[in-house]
């Protein structure tokens, strides 16, 4: 697998003062470009035995149904050749419908939902496809500035098929009015790159009268994978 240098603006700016925490936490020196040694082309093999029955249905982890709008999110994980990234681990986490995380440090006054944890994990299939059922997360305030509200989003953590493909990102929902006010979203200077984080509504993925469908494809760094994905 080959890793090319990235076009400027492909990722957020590491120090983006409108997002205050970046000022002391984002590295200021350019990264040291190194040739990826062979060992970076391996990755952990997550056994499917680690996947629990309801890891891909975040609405089925409690004793009853969580509150909010049930949705299904699906998409394909691809490399830069557009080839599927198969059998690779993907983690998701999110706020509940009220915009509250189940986390000891979340101080938002919105209520927890006893039937919603807000986390899951899964493996991609032979097409690179993942699919999970959840609740549409709410927007929430985060104290970065006056009236700082995050647009609704789901966090994604992807392992790919090679260590150097690791990606953590956030999926947004189409047409969110908070995009223009959110420095985390705005930290990606390239407008086309930014739009790649916005899922699209899909009538095809919508399931009858149960839930609306959203599609979100993810492209991980790397090309020229072998037929085994490495």
């Amino acid at each position, binding site marked *: 697998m080959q890793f090319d240098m990235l076009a400027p603006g*492909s*990722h957020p700016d590491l120090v983006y003062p409108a997002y205050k*925490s970046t000022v002391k936490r*984002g590295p200021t020196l350019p990264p040291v470009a190194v040739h990826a040694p062979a*060992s970076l082309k391996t990755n952990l093999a997550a056994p499917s035995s680690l996947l629990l029955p309801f890891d891909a249905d975040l609405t089925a982890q409690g004793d009853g149904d969580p509150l909010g709008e049930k949705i299904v999110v699906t998409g394909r994980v691809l490399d830069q050749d557009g080839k599927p990234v198969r059998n690779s681990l993907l983690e998701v986490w999110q706020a509940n419908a009220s915009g509250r995380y189940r986390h000891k440090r979340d101080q938002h006054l919105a209520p927890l939902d006893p039937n919603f944890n807000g986390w899951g994990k899964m493996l991609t299939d032979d097409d690179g496809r993942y699919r999970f059922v959840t609740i549409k997360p709410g927007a929430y305030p985060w104290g970065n500035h006056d009236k700082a509200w995050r647009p609704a989003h789901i966090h994604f953590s992807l392992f790919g098929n090679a260590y150097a493909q690791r990606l953590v990102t956030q999926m947004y929902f189409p047409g969110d009015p908070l995009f223009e006010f959110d420095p985390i979203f705005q930290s990606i200077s390239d407008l086309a790159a930014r739009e790649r984080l916005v899922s699209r509504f899909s009538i095809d993925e919508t399931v009858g009268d149960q839930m609306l469908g959203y599609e979100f494809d993810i492209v991980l760094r790397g090309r020229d994978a072998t037929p085994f994905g490495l």
Partner: protein
Amino acid sequence: MTHPITPSQTIGPFSHEAWQWACAACTPAGADGMETITIHGMLRDGDGTPVNDGMIEAWSPGAATIEHERAHQLAGFRRVPTDDEGRFTLVLSRAEEASCEPAALVTVFMRGLLVHQFSAVFLEDDDLDRAALLRQVPPERRATLVARKSGPASYAWEIRMQGAQETVFFDYGGAP
């Protein structure tokens, strides 16, 4: 045609519960009698302030094969949160003597870090002169990637996000 990548976004402050399963599943090395080393780490921001909401992942390909044979669930992989004092502890299987490979390839995540950073940790008593990855780093910055011996099978290492001793972070798109 080369497809453009999906951009990164910060892990934010609320990953702990979602990520905990892997912290638990990466069996502590040594439980099965393997030789281990322990890296006592510290994560600091540009002011030197400890980062108490970071996540550190370590990948040791050389140890993965051995740990797999010993039925570790996430062989070769470690994930640890930083604690209230910014500390983290990596207990790693020791694959061989005097290696020229890093003890672990390390990925750093935290709130306020919009793109996770790839680094690596080497041990000071390893064969650093032959370490191919380390030799690609400017000599004056190599020390930021070397953990210092602090006791028997025990090492100390600091990750500094900024400043004069800013840790080296890698871009793996370099030419061979």
